[in-house]
């Protein structure tokens, strides 16, 4: 009998210790194990790094002055010196066509555009603008919408009504038209603006960033406000109030941490959306203005050359698809990691 009782309890040092893990650490580990999401993250980081390295590519690999027109320049293909803008074909030899892709990084890898600029370099520089605007406006939008949603959800009542109605109006204003209105308005001021001590030039990248962030405020506001409202009703908030917590402490210590996961899930998806919006705006010439380039402006520049030099329009599109695809897959992965049973779950097939 004694032998049996002795076998029941394992020695203390062999018993596994129960370690409590922080939910964020658990979520991070789930994300880390999601191989597809990690691949997407690596792809996105690669694209960002490549675009950041644009000056390096321009000066050390392609040996071009990135944004300057190069109508009379020459380059070397297969050992022969060739002008960048070639005489048009046909009997009349009218017009000029830029050279096509040479697939040689040192010499106009993807060909030239109608101003003789190296398309491959342009795409990297364009990526900087598009990514800057995309990420910047998504972050601004998420932060702004969270602040407004916290105020609306926390104070409730008439504050909530007014803020929600304002958001409804912004959302009901046809998005593109609102974008157009604001962009065109701001762009007619070619001298730029004065906001007190700050002078913003009309071709600054801040303008599209702020406009796009503003447009999507209601889109992020709605789910975040829903989350704030549901958290405010929970018992631990009531307990915190009962123990005398100030409003500030309630918001930052009790409500915000429970709302942040919703925002984190939305962030990659918002970046994808804002990048696509910026491309559309720049294509219509109301987004990024010359002398800056973005993926949208390159596509628009390539329209005239579409049937002779299609790569000018096609290449930026490929970059956009890759970036947005990576962001969407990453967004799915983040959502699965943070809330595997979430109702927001869309299409996780892996």
């Amino acid at each position: 009998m004694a032998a049996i009782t002795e076998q029941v309890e394992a020695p203390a040092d062999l018993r596994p210790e129960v370690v409590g893990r922080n939910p964020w650490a658990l979520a991070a580990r789930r994300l880390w194990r999601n191989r597809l999401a990690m691949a997407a993250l690596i792809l996105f980081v690669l694209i960002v790094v490549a675009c950041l390295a644009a000056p390096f590519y321009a000066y050390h690999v392609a040996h071009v002055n990135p944004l300057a027109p190069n109508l009379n320049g020459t380059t070397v293909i297969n050992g022969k010196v060739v002008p960048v803008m070639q005489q048009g074909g046909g009997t009349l030899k009218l017009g000029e066509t830029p050279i096509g892709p040479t697939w040689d990084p040192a010499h106009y890898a993807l060909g030239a555009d109608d101003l003789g600029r190296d398309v491959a370099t342009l795409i990297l520089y364009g990526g900087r603008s598009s990514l800057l605007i995309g990420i910047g406006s998504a972050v601004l939008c998420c932060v702004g919408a969270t602040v407004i949603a916290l105020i609306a959800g926390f104070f409730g009542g008439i504050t909530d009504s007014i803020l929600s109605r304002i958001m409804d109006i912004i959302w009901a204003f046809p998005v593109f038209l609102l974008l157009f209105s604001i962009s065109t308005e701001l762009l007619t001021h070619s001298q730029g603006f004065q906001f007190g001590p700050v002078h913003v030039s009309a071709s600054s990248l801040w303008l599209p960033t702020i406009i796009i962030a503003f447009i999507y405020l209601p889109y992020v506001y709605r789910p975040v406000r829903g989350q704030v409202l549901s958290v405010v009703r929970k018992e631990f908030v009531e307990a915190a109030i009962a123990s005398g917590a100030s409003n500030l402490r309630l918001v930052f210590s009790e409500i915000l941490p429970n709302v942040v996961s919703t925002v984190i899930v939305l962030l990659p998806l918002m970046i994808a959306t804002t990048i696509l919006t910026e491309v559309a705006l720049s294509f219509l010439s109301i987004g990024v203005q010359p002398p800056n380039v973005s993926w949208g402006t390159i596509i628009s520049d390539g329209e005239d050359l579409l049937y002779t030099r299609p790569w000018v329009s096609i290449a930026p599109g490929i970059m956009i698809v890759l970036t947005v695809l990576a962001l969407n897959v990453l967004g799915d992965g983040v959502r699965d990691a943070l809330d595997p049973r979430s109702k927001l779950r869309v299409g996780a097939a892996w």
Partner: protein
Amino acid sequence: MLTFIVRRLLWTVLVMFVITVLTFLIFFKTPGVDPARALAGRSPSPQTLAEIRASFGLNRPLPIQYLLMMKQLFVTRSLVSYSNQGLLVVPEIAAAAPATLSLVFGAAVLWVVLAIAMGVAAALLRGTLFDPVLMILALIGISAPVVWVGTLANYFSQGTLHNTFLFSWVPPLGYTPFLQSPSLWFKGLIIPWITLSILYIGFYARVLRANLLEVQNEDFVRTARAKGLREPRVVVRHTLRNSMITFVSLFGLDFGALVAGGALITEVVFGIHGVGFLTYEAFQSLDLPTIMAVVVFGAFFIVLFNALVDIAYAWLDPRVRPT
């Protein structure tokens, strides 16, 4: 239910009013935008400018100008464009509307059918290889910007492959009214339809699949399976209906937004002179009456469809009877 509908519609009217006022203020209040100068042509003399101001009512106080414009837009429909002399704005929009409606309607039919097919197929084939493949296709659809897909489509159909049997039937870019030539109308719209719907098919297939999978865990589905029904029947007859609520409400919102001018990029890329194209031209030339008219047109559709979707949602899902 009735009070809800009435309140929703009243709110709609209020929102429309606010939107028109905002548009008006944005354009008329900005310094540097002077319609009289735009109307007067080259190097106008001060007298010409003064005459134009008087005849167009530009020297009246802003609220009066606003009411005048609203009256011209809605009541007398005699609103005249600033950049095209004598062009009546309202009939122009009325003439452009069929192009946009054809484009959006056709694309909507295409995307609803294909999205339901893809979503149901992915849910049914869950666990096999088809599910991830379909969802990857859907993801690519969401990730490709419409402007690029349209440009690519143009490149193939009008450019390199135009002479092959694949695309030789494609007419030149542009819209042919249905009454003029149904076959040209159709042939000219197929590629724009496909381009426009790719994005939405991807999005809606994913939404539908997620909803279907969520509903599949409900008790009534377990009952249906326990009764011995085959899986396709369970999915289509029982789960699909319950999953369509989100689908329908999102569809209403997107359709409204597209008609309101969201199809702008597609129209510009394919040269279809619809309302979106008009909008684009109006913003290029800063033609304020046309801008006001298209904004009103657009806002009306968006707000109308928002209201319809809210009402439909409340009707379809009795649990969501409103405040």
